[in-house]
């Protein structure tokens, strides 16, 4: 899968990325972001959409949590707990992969 690994356990240095078969899409008719996956359509809330946009295969979990904590002026530990729970749940469903390629 081009450097993306499945069945992952998230760690702080994991660089999460949406696999090719999971598509974050803004649906014009329903005016909301959706996550399209095999036989599934998930409805992320606003925060989840923001987290998913940060899952670009470049930012580690630690980095994306730090970015969110700074942006919302919120305690990092709390954000870490929520983000990891959300992303691990997606990973367990096979809807999140890990970028294992070196960053240029």
């Amino acid at each position: 899968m081009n450097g993306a690994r499945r069945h992952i356990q998230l760690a702080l240095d994991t660089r999460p990325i949406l696999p090719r078969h999971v598509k974050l899409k803004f649906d014009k008719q329903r005016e909301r972001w959706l996550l399209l996956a095999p036989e599934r359509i998930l409805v992320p809330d606003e925060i989840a959409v923001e987290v998913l946009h940060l899952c670009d295969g470049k930012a580690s979990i630690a980095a994306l949590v730090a970015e969110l904590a700074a942006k919302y002026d919120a305690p990092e530990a709390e954000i870490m707990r929520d983000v990891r729970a959300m992303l691990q749940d997606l990973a367990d469903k096979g809807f999140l992969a890990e970028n294992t390629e070196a960053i240029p």
Partner: protein
Amino acid sequence: MTDAKSDPLAPAKSTPFGLPLSVLAEITHRCPLQCPYCSNPIEMDRAASELSTEEWQRVLHELADLGVLQIHFSGGEPTARTDLLELVQCATDVGLYSNLITSGVLLTKDRLAALYQAGLSHVQISFQASDETLANRIGAHRRGHAKKLEAAKWTREVGLPLTVNAVVHRQNLHELPDLIDMAVALDADRLEVANVQYYGWALKNRAALMPSEAQIEEATAVVDTARKRLLGILEIDYVVPDYYALRPKKCMGGWGRQFFNISPAGKVLPCHAAESITGLVFDSVRDHSLAWIWEHSPAFNLYRGTDWMPEPCRSCALREEDYGGCRCQAFALTGNAANTDPACALSPQHDEIFQTARREAADGSSRFIYRNFIGGTAEPEVENNDR
């Protein structure tokens, strides 16, 4: 994050329908297999009546405009159409998430790679059993099972996620642990353990397919254990079959609420089995726009909402939970599609179908009637009696 199947995108309960979410495109009824539980109608569309490439392309544009998000290319065997690649490319171009539902027996690795390049997002391959001899007997294809294993391997090699679909019944349920192991070995993400639904071909073959209660209990336990063991590795979809259920399924999420099916000849159906309800007239994409059909087709509006319901559905507190179950099953078992689905314990026919299931599971002949364009062919008699 919430799953659209269990709401946010669903229309409000009191409204009869919303925007369609996903569509099953049965692009042909041709198929190299002859499974006795095929979900196609007994009267199948011939090749000459199939929509052309251009007609499907127009339909795909209309689907995207209508708000449809996912398209499932199915059949028959969708890879029997030589223009499948063009159709998948068109789906990608208009922004539809595409899924291929296939038997796998006609696929090559090159064709899968091309479909990947055209934007295909997911492949679902059906398996008739895990044992080769049994699988090939059920599908009536001498090399079917081996070809499927090959197609599943290529699917993963080209980088596509794989769902293994295993249709289960009395004659293969004992293999469920092996089917689960097979799905893991094939590196599938999902396994659908699909109990046969009894209309059309499967209804003709019900006595040969109906499982026993003991088999269903065991299958449920096997799935429960496997789900825990395989968390994060293999997702397993499994639903208890209707004849042994107490509550009916919310079939299609409610008639004409969020889903529809397009037949090879272009008829738009609220459910892939809807043509089994005789007397209903279905509108065609050849005569109307999809937007018109979704809103105005009499066949869609007939069983939308709750106004059409007789008792015991009409006054039932759960009428908007399950919409009275499955219309096709109600028709098949009671002769009236508006009746409560006999899968419901409140249906006057519930006990009768339960007893029928028990009797057929115990005494039914295991001889199949194979699906084909001439109304079905009985399996040859065999001399050994190991079935």
